[in-house]
């Protein structure tokens, strides 16, 4: 027995709400692979108001499967915004006080140019003809967007996981534009173990016959089984053994005894299948390939002669690095390495490890200690930036 097929409509999704910014074809985005990409549409959302000095802008960077709908009901899933716990009126990133921007990364599938969008040269979806992009490319595109809004300096750049990688990229590639940076549950490079997990996910997608070498959109198929398996494997890495045990233990799903078959006997199986099947309703398989690749390629020190500290040399930004005790995907040791490098560059850095058993996902969950720490950091930065309460 395999995962139940999700109900997928092949009719085009409704036009997503939110703003669009276009990088024109005559001024294309230079890419790390040496190529250029244009036109590029960037789908983004903003919350709050930019103040007169344009000093209160906060850029939120989303993680692998996140998107721009950070603080509002998601138009596709109907679920709350992915970081509503942190962003919104009265929250740490108070939208009554800050101008919050969140953009879908390039290569994504929520309105920003990515493999599922049409290549203007052919009129057909890019598929695998889309260039392999990097975290650096994502940030380069975001910089164009931020500049188009008339913002010369971001009060804060914040993100977790892949979002944290973008934060680090921002702080090192465009230090003059970053007043403060909050890289959370992240690392300055993707580890061998993390690349390995991503490879499992990609192979699952590519092993699905409906993937069709990436051209599934034109064939009218969707590699939903492969993508669901990729999501299931990845989802395990977002949790901790303790959390899984606490949530599910060896509890059986809708039955009193083992079935002696391969159905979802255990609650944990049922849960993962559910995670897989709901994911494919909102995410594009090729986007998953491209974005995981971008994370794998991330290695901040490589651009600075192999010395991570050099990346932060002369940085005047204030950093708040956060890790979680039970996160084994981006463990505290990665954050500590980052902090050592920041110290070596005499950067202004705070570093906290939050005790939790919720694993990597903790950064998206209701963690009062996290909000307390981030709140204090943001307040301290706002004071120095001269932002009113």
């Amino acid at each position: 027995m395999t995962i139940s097929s999700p109900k997928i409509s092949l009719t085009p999704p409704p036009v997503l709400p939110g703003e669009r910014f276009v990088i024109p074809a005559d001024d294309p985005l230079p890419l790390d692979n040496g190529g250029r990409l244009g036109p590029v549409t960037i789908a983004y959302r903003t919350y709050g108001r930019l103040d007169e000095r344009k000093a209160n802008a906060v850029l939120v960077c989303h993680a692998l499967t996140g998107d721009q709908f950070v603080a509002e009901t998601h138009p596709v899933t109907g679920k709350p915004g992915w970081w509503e716990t942190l962003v919104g009126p009265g929250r740490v990133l108070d939208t009554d006080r800050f101008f919050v921007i969140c953009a879908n990364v390039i290569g994504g599938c929520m309105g920003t140019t990515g493999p599922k969008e049409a290549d203007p040269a052919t009129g057909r979806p890019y598929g695998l003809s889309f260039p392999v992009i990097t975290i650096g490319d994502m940030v380069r595109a975001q910089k164009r967007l931020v500049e188009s809004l008339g913002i010369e300096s971001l009060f804060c750049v914040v993100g977790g996981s892949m979002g944290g990688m973008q934060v680090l990229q921002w702080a090192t590639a465009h230090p003059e534009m970053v007043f403060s940076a909050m890289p959370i549950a992240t690392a300055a490079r993707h580890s061998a173990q993390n690349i390995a997990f991503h490879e499992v996910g990609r192979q699952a997608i590519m092993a699905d016959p409906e993937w069709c070498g990436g051209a599934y959109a034109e064939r009218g198929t969707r590699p939903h089984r492969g993508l669901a398996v990729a999501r299931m494997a990845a989802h395990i890495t977002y949790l901790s053994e303790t959390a899984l045990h606490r949530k599910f233990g060896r509890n059986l799903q809708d039955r009193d005894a083992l079935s002696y078959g391969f159905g979802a006997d255990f609650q944990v199986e049922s849960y993962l299948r559910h995670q897989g099947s709901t994911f494919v309703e909102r995410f594009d398989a090729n986007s998953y390939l491209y974005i995981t690749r971008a994370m794998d390629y991330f290695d901040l020190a490589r651009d600075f002669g192999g010395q991570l500290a050099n990346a932060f040399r002369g940085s005047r930004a204030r950093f708040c690095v956060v890790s979680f005790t039970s996160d084994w995907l981006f463990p505290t040791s990665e954050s500590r390495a980052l902090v050592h490098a920041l110290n070596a560059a005499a950067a202004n850095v705070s570093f906290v490890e939050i005790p939790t058993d919720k694993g990597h996902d903790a950064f998206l969950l209701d963690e009062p200690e996290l909000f307390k720490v981030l709140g204090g950091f943001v307040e301290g930065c706002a004071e120095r930036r001269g932002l009113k309460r």
Partner: protein
Amino acid sequence: MATPMQLVGAHPRANIRVDLQVIADMIEPGTRVLDVGCGDGQLLDYLVHFRQVDGRGMEISQAGVNNCVAHGLSVIQGDADTDLKDYPSDAFDYVILSQTLQATHDPREVLMQLVRIGRRAIVSFPNFGAWHVRLKLLWSGKMPVTDSYDVAWYETPNIHLCTIDDFAELCSDVGITIERGMVLDAAGRPRALRAPGFLANLLGEQGLFVLGRRA
């Protein structure tokens, strides 16, 4: 949270512990300061708000760090024994090590790191040579438990206790200059004695030294 923290970043406290105030008064306004073992951030908060320093902290306890950062201080979780080596030389004008030296594994190395990364180091520690400590050991024949050493030998974090004369000797051995030395009484107030010295070593409850590199 293990201990209630009193620090309030938004409403900085003007009144800090007496011995911390003595240290604060040694710091020039507007300088770069690293407080190693900053605890709940009391001194650092004062320095940032009343001396306008560019202040950073390092603290080993997670609760202490989280509380400091939650109050807007730039503090990292770290260990004086292992994490000072990351900082570049001359990164700070002052590096403070208040009541922490005796709890480090390698006090000599820690002291050398302090004067490497700071132009000056300010170090305070409880004086094991104080007369009443000597008396307790002499009369009872047991490890003294006093205000400064308030836990039994088997559970104390203070693994490298020293006297003021011991400290001065170590500084001399490793080429560290004592620019200024004083002793504090049990309440943390300075006493009119020059340290190091026979009387300072006998009467001082705490030693407080400003250190520099030998030119």
